[in-house]
C-alpha cells in the first residue's frame, strides 16, 4: 500500500513538473550562402550558462572538431552531460545553399536556451552558429540572422586536401565541386586564435593553381549566412 502511494506520487510528479513547463518548438534553418554547405547540424536546448562556444575565447577541442571537420559527436557528448535536449543531424547530411531544414525540438523547462552549430564547407575552420540564445516563452514565430564564425584554430589556407581532423591543415572538400586544385595556400598563420567573426574566404579564379582552391565567384559570402526561425507552439 505504502509502495503504491510512493509510486503514484512519483508518477504524478513526473506528469506534473515536466510536461507542464516543457515547450514544443518548431525550428527552421536556411542556408543563405551562395555556394557553401553546412555539415550536419547540432541543435541543443540547454540551461543558461552552457555554451558550444563564446566569442572572444578559445574554442574547445570539441568545437574545433566540428569547425575543422564537421564532427559534432564531441559537442553532442558535452551537451548530453548537462542534460540538454538535442537534435542531431536533422538534414541527414549536408544543408545545401538555399536549402531549409525544419524539425521539432521539445525542451524541458530548465533547458531554456538554444545553441546550434555546423561547419561551413569549404572552409578551414568556419562555422555557422548560435551561442546560448534565450528561447522565447510566448507562443509565436521568431526570426534570427546567423553569422559565420572562425574557430581560430586553423590557418585559413584554403587548400582542399581532404584534411578534416583537428589540427590538420587544409579544407576537407567542396561538396559543390566548384573547387580548383594545386593552390599554394592563402596563409600559414591564424591571427586571431579566439572564436571570432569569419572574414570570409578569399578564393581566386585559377582552377589549377593560384593561392586558393576556392572559387572567388562561388564560395564567398557575407553575413548573415543563415536564417533561424523558432516557432514556440
Amino acid at each position, binding site marked *: 500500500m505504502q509502495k503504491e502511494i510512493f509510486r503514484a506520487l512519483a508518477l504524478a510528479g513526473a506528469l506534473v513538473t515536466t510536461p507542464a513547463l516543457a515547450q514544443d518548438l518548431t525550428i527552421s534553418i536556411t542556408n543563405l550562402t551562395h555556394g557553401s554547405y553546412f555539415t550536419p547540424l547540432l541543435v541543443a536546448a540547454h540551461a543558461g550558462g552552457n555554451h558550444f562556444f563564446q*566569442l572572444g575565447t578559445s574554442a574547445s577541442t570539441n568545437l574545433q572538431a566540428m569547425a575543422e571537420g564537421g564532427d559534432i559527436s564531441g559537442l553532442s557528448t558535452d551537451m548530453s552531460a548537462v542534460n540538454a535536449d538535442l537534435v542531431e543531424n536533422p538534414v541527414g547530411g549536408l544543408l545545401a545553399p538555399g536549402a531549409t531544414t525544419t524539425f521539432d525540438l521539445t525542451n524541458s523547462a530548465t533547458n531554456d536556451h538554444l545553441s546550434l552549430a555546423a561547419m561551413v564547407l569549404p572552409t578551414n575552420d568556419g562555422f555557422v552558429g548560435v551561442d546560448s540564445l534565450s528561447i522565447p516563452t510566448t507562443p509565436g514565430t521568431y526570426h534570427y540572422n546567423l553569422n559565420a564564425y572562425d574557430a581560430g584554430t586553423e590557418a585559413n589556407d584554403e587548400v582542399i586536401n581532404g584534411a578534416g581532423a583537428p589540427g590538420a591543415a587544409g579544407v576537407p572538400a567542396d561538396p559543390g565541386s566548384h573547387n580548383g586544385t594545386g593552390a599554394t595556400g592563402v596563409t600559414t598563420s591564424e591571427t586571431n586564435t579566439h572564436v571570432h567573426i569569419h572574414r570570409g574566404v578569399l578564393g581566386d579564379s585559377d582552377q589549377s593553381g593560384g593561392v586558393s582552391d576556392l572559387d572567388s565567384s562561388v564560395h564567398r559570402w557575407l553575413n548573415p549566412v543563415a536564417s533561424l526561425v523558432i516557432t514556440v507552439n
Partner: protein
Amino acid sequence: MDMLKTATLALIVTGPLLLTGCDHNDDDDNDTTARVSYELKVTNLTAAQPLSPLAVVVHDSSYGMWSVGSSASNGLEQLSEGGDNTELLSEAADNSVVTMSGGGVIAPGQSESLIIEADETSDLALSFATMLVNTNDAFTGLNAIDVSGMAAGSSRQLLIRAYDAGTEANSEQASTVPGPAAGGEGYNPTRDDRDSVGGHPGVVTHDDGLSGSALNESHRFDNPVAQVTITRMQ
C-alpha cells in the same frame, strides 16, 4: 479635476521613464542626485584589425557622436584616420555628462571592460567609437544608445558593424594606413572622400588585386566587427 486627468495621462505616457526617474520624485529630504554606473565591455571580433583606444561618452539627448549621411566631426575624423580619441572626447565634453578613454588598443580576439559613472537623468545615452587601425578611416561603435531604461543589474548585448568616416579615400596605400600593417600617416585634415559617414564596404587588399595596397587578406573583415555588452551596475 482637469489637472488630475492631465496628471493621469502624463503618468501613462511616461510610465517607463518614471521607473528610472523615481529617485528624484520621492518626498524625503535628502534629494541628492542619483548616480548610475555602466560597465561597457567591447570584444574585437575581427581577424587582424586592432581597435584603437575607445572614446566613450555618456550623455543626454543633445549629443550624437556621428550621423550616417552627414559629415564627420573633426574629432571623429581624427579618431577614424589616426586612432586618436583626444579631440572626439574634447568635443563631447562641451555638452555631455561624462567622457572616458579606453585603456589601450584592443587586439583581435581580446576584450576591454570599463566602468563609467554619471548622474542619473531620464534621457541618458551611451556612445563610443574606435578605429579599425589597419584601414584608412574605418571605425565602429555605438551612437546614442538609450541606457536610461535599464534596471540595475541588467545587461544588453549588441553586435556592431564597421562604418567609414568618409573623410579619407580608401587607397590602402602604406603611407595612409596607420596600423601595424603599414605604419603610415594617421590624421590628415584633407577630406578626399565623399565627406559623409556611411557603412564601410570592407577592405580590398593586395591579395585580392588592389595594386599598392599595404593590406593582405587577413585584414579583411565582415560585419559584425565587435560584440558589446552594456551592464548597468547601480
